[in-house]
């Protein structure tokens, strides 16, 4: 068979092939990046080790019941107010008597600085909805993040997320994120 003159092949089917592949990858694509709130679980305590007794003023008690209602430090509260309250508790700007104590601590870049001894205790019921739980966790995380951001802005002129590791660690030392979760209870039923 003689060769065709010019020796070109039809490029028009190229588009079809490319479309076919395109559609395959379009369907197979999942664009979602995994995002979420990272937490660390406490290790299982062996025996009946109760740990240190913590003063009441140093604990910020957050309770969520089976009806997704919030009680903070003995008072019912709306979830939107939680952030402000938590910030007030952690920072204790005017050194109030009923808010947590502070301890002087040596932190790089800052020198000796008072660090709060406050702990947030979160307790929920088995009947609490996951949505509410995440909302509360989110508000508490937001309180810490806002405080860290404010400090980072004041000291380094940058947001906390944009700091390098040493600076970020120093700030995390001053506002350590301690959210303790009590052993679960079952009061409200399922």
């Amino acid at each position, binding site marked *: 068979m003689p060769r065709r003159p010019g020796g070109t092949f039809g490029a028009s089917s190229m*588009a079809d092939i490319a479309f076919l592949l395109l559609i395959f990858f379009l369907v197979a694509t999942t664009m979602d990046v995994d995002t979420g709130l990272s937490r660390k*679980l406490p290790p299982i305590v062996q025996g009946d080790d109760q740990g240190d007794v913590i003063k009441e003023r140093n604990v910020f008690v957050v309770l969520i019941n089976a009806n997704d209602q919030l009680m903070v430090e003995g008072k019912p509260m709306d979830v939107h107010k939680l952030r402000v309250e938590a910030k007030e508790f952690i920072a204790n700007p005017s050194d109030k008597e009923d808010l947590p104590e502070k301890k002087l601590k040596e932190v790089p870049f800052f020198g000796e600085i008072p660090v709060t001894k406050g702990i947030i205790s979160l307790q929920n019921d088995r009947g609490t909805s996951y949505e509410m739980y995440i909302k509360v966790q989110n508000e508490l995380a937001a309180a810490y993040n806002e405080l860290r951001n404010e400090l980072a802005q004041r000291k380094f002129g940058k947001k906390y997320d944009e700091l390098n590791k040493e600076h970020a660690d120093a700030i995390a030392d001053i506002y350590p994120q301690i959210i303790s979760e009590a052993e679960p209870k079952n009061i409200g039923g399922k």
Partner: protein
Amino acid sequence: MSKFKQKKEVGSQEISTASLPDIVFMLLFFFMVTTTMRETTINVQQKLPGATEVKKLERKNLVSYIYIGKPRQNFQKLYGTEPRIQLNDAFARIDDIRNYVISEREKVDENERTFLTTSLKVDQETKMGVIIDVKQELRKAGALKINYSSRRVTNIED
């Protein structure tokens, strides 16, 4: 002679399709690069809760997933409508979590085991009871780093 030429009647004009493959190829490459294949089919309903303070989960090879939620419509006859746990491709019971964690741990390098994270992908309507049990199991298994998977939203709606 008039200054303005009489417009010639133009025959039906066609857009050249020669550049079409190029455009399609460009899209194709984009999707090829961004594609991550789904390894597991999720058999439970998943509507993740929204949160504003979320962080991106890095190093996906060091993440193992636990899915919790109501079984999907076609599984409801078999498994009911109560929230169930899914590990890998199958429904599982609470007791299976420990073995799952151990097998996930075997898969990664020894010096990277401390970075293993368990991502909890939980439907937002689930009650905390199941999650508390799962968390207790994870504590017993020594998988302490967890991540509550949630969508990034700009503000929390009621």
